[in-house]
């Protein structure tokens, strides 16, 4: 049964033209990718677009993937797609905390920009982090990756990543404490 195959086997089958095998890979990794993108971008439509772009790129570049390393390879693509989407959001003037939206920073025909982060305490606290800190925090604590793998995926050094995670934890704890006090 195709559902029992490993990622590596599904990648090999996909490379020979098995659409069902790639669909199974999408089924297996979609929610995980969406979780990261949603937290990183703080906006569900942008996150869904980033995940869609991730799988489209993965399909087009599957021949370059080492089958045994599909998940980290896909994560690298996802990180890049989220960075691109984040840059686009900043260009649109939307990547700012909801509390500090400045009417002079954006323009929109007949509607305000959507909130830059999910409307939850945790989501709002996450929004206080810079994209780099947020990315490192999510890879470490949500995807539960080791620093060596994070370094391979992001291109940043391990010591820099440890520093970012530490700073993210401190900032997030402060933001959560602040919101708890409110």
């Amino acid at each position, binding site marked *: 049964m195709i559902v029992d195959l490993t990622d590596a086997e599904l990648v090999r089958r996909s490379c020979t033209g098995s659409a069902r095998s790639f669909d199974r890979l999408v089924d297996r990794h979609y929610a995980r990718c969406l979780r990261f993108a949603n937290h990183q971008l703080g906006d569900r439509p942008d996150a869904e677009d980033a995940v*869609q772009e991730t799988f489209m790129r993965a399909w087009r570049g599957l021949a370059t993937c080492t089958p045994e390393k599909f998940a980290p390879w896909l994560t690298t693509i996802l990180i890049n797609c989220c960075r691109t989407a984040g840059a686009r959001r900043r260009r*649109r003037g939307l990547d700012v905390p909801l509390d500090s939206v400045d009417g002079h920073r954006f323009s929109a025909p007949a509607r305000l920009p959507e909130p830059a982060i999910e409307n939850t305490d945790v989501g709002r606290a*996450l929004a206080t982090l810079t994209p780099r800190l947020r990315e490192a925090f999510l890879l470490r*604590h949500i995807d539960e990756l080791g620093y060596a793998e994070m370094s391979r995926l992001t291109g940043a050094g391990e010591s820099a990543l440890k520093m970012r995670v530490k700073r993210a934890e401190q900032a*997030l704890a402060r933001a959560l404490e602040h919101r708890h006090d409110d």
Partner: protein
Amino acid sequence: MTTDPDARLRSAIERLRQMPEPDPAARKRLNRQLRLGRSGGTSIVLSRRAALAAAALVVLCTSAVWISALTLIAGPPGAVTATTTPIQFVLVAPDAASVSLVGDFNHWDSAAMPLREGADGVWSVVVPLARGAFTYSFVVDGDEWRADPAAPAAPADFGRPSSVLYVSPESTP
């Protein structure tokens, strides 16, 4: 883990680890794009934001409010015909001295379609457009290009921020 977050932080991490429920419509869109890619057909990646913008456009262009607004806002160069759809472009720029619209539809001529300033720094212009996809941008004070944050970003902006607008036949009032 090598870190020791406090209880509140640990609780937040647990909440963040919960898997989101995928939107069936988003999955369907991805599957459609993958099918197109496999068949070797021309694949236009229509993002959810683009789809929302197109849907909003349809609503905007078919509403009675929109029709009445046409009588209040100064008309653009060109006339609305049976084959075009009047599209209102709006930019909030309270500090601007001038704003103009440039795009595929006016050969990127910044003198062709100036916006008119309304209340509270809201600049607008109405342009009749035929169906199709258009790339456009706003030019503020003659030299600052600004993309429309309410529309999808153009995939290739030639180094300048620009946006994409889809005008469908259904947009016709």
